[in-house]
């Protein structure tokens, strides 16, 4: 399935979770900050930024988070394993040309694998960015999709 758009945001919704994805309009270096290192991932037109809310929650903060990364190029902060603050993070971010959702990620994955945590109902979806929009593969039955127009973001 091809979903054409430019600055708009794709929303995939299940019964208790959702995922947002949008294309990057211009090249930038996305910095990923860990405890003791910084990694920089080159992003370009057609690449995707996705925000997943595995446990539902409001959409507006996810939209803001997506734009903070896509438009304002804020770096991502990665918490170390078992950090006490991780339980307070309701949204996760992934970025790259291809993003795949998973509900059973073993701790130890990283951005190179283009995996993003999702609920079980949204697991297995593959999103691929194109210059015209997003290609969606393996969309599970019962998952709806829609477009949030840029002027409403």
């Amino acid at each position, binding site marked *: 399935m091809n979903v054409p758009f430019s600055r708009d945001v794709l929303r995939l919704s299940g019964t208790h979770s959702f995922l947002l994805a949008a294309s990057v309009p211009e*090249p*930038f*270096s996305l*910095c*990923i900050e*860990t405890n*003791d*290192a*910084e*990694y*920089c*991932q*080159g*992003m*370009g037109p057609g690449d995707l930024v996705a925000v997943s809310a*595995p*446990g539902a929650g409001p959409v507006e903060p996810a939209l803001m988070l997506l734009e903070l990364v896509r438009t304002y190029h804020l770096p*991502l902060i*990665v*918490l*170390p*394993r078992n*950090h006490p603050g*991780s*339980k*307070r*993070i*309701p*949204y*996760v*971010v*992934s970025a*790259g*040309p291809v993003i795949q959702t*998973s509900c*059973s*990620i*073993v*701790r*130890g*994955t*990283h*951005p*190179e694998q283009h*995996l*993003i*945590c999702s609920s079980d109902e949204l697991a297995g979806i593959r999103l691929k960015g194109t210059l015209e929009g997003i290609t969606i593969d393996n969309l599970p039955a019962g998952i709806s999709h829609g477009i949030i127009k840029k002027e409403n973001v």
Partner: protein
Amino acid sequence: MCSVGGPTDIDLPEDRVAAKDYRCKECGERFKGIGKRPMCPSCQSEDVAEI
């Protein structure tokens, strides 16, 4: 990024990050790059060299 079960978590084990060291030819910044399109985090130049 990843998470597993229960509350959302993020983890990035550095021994599995396929990062390469780069130097920007325009501003001299050194950085660890991942992905197929390394780009300087300081000046956003793509004119970088692996070191």
